[in-house]
């Protein structure tokens, strides 16, 4: 058999084979891999390359080596799931670099990290001044994560004591003009519902590049034709204004009426709507 046919067959077979091997080796991203995982992937790829280019003449030997480098890591992963000690032994432990605002020089020495490297990594996390850093840790993967002092952390609604409405993940229901029935049914909606919603805003599904349903069950669409104006969904604003109007109306009636009972009823209800408005505010 010609050499090139030989290589062609081997390459194709191993390409498909290694595709599956890498799939079963896991989903971990290489950028967040520990040094061992990194070495592991490289060895696997080198073995495949050596077999394909016939540097390893005996294919069976090559496959045995490949098997070891694929199966052992999986076993190691399973064992590290079971035992924290084993995990630390294989992947190493995280090292604390800054604690209570103080740089731990001994730990820096242990992981052979220079002060400049530390500063560079801190700057990456927007900590230009070491005095802003409360805590920094070197992960086993080599990433440095930084906890800023509490007065330097970004403000969140909870700092301001603002109640915000909870959101759930939006579901994509239209992609490239095609309705995705699976996500529609996970929302408990039918294709018919989608059709009605699209008719409401007056677009055909062929013109929709992307459609998402938010946690309020409202449909948002992006059209291929960006010149087309879509009516904005103002239902929630309308709801708010209408409630406010009713509240004002009731308050006025309570002032105008002569009947003592009706006066109280109007006043009480207007107060209730006012409370309702406060409660609904984050949601509307």
């Amino acid at each position, binding site marked *: 058999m010609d050499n090139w046919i030989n290589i062609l067959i081997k390459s194709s077979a191993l390409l498909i084979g290694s595709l599956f091997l890498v799939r079963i080796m896991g989903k971990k991203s290489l950028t967040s891999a520990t040094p061992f995982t990194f070495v592991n992937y490289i060895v696997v790829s080198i073995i495949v390359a050596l077999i394909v280019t016939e540097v390893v003449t005996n294919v069976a030997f090559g496959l045995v080596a490949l098997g070891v480098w694929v199966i052992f890591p999986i076993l190691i992963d399973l064992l590290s799931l079971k035992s924290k000690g084993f995990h630390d032994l294989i992947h190493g432990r995280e090292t604390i670099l800054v604690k209570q605002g103080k740089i731990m020089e001994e730990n820096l020495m242990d992981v052979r990290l220079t002060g400049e490297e530390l500063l560079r990594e801190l700057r990456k996390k927007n900590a230009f001044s070491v005095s802003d850093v409360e805590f920094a840790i070197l992960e086993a993967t080599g990433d440095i994560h930084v906890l800023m002092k509490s007065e330097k952390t970004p403000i969140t609604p909870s700092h301001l004591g603002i109640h915000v*409405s*909870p*959101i*759930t993940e939006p579901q994509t229901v239209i992609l490239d003009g095609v309705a995705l029935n699976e996500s529609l049914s996970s*929302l408990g909606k039918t294709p018919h519902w989608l059709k009605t919603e699209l008719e409401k805003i007056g677009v055909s599904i062929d013109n929709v590049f992307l459609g998402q349903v938010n*946690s*309020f*069950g*409202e449909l948002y669409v992006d059209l291929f034709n960006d010149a087309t104006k879509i009516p904005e969904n103002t*239902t929630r604003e*309308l*709801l708010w204004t*209408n*409630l406010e*109007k*009713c509240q004002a*109306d*009731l308050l006025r*009636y309570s002032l*105008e009426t002569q009947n003592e009972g*009706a006066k109280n*009823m*109007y006043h009480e*209800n207007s107060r*209730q*709507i006012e409370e*309702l408005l406060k*409660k*609904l505010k984050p*949601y509307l």
Partner: protein
Amino acid sequence: MGVDSQLKSTIATLKGVKATLHIYSLQSSHSDSKIIFKDAFDITTQITDQLENRLQVLKLEEPQYQEQ
């Protein structure tokens, strides 16, 4: 506009609000917002009921406040 027709228009608006709240309470995918909208729906239902009662009273007992 007489008192009764003003009250009627308020009731109509409130009914619209009630329906929208009901839709949201059914559509929301988060349980917290579901509860809030359900509560709001219940309160508006109560208020519309009371206002409707008042409208009846206005019609029957105080005809002097109707359209002059």
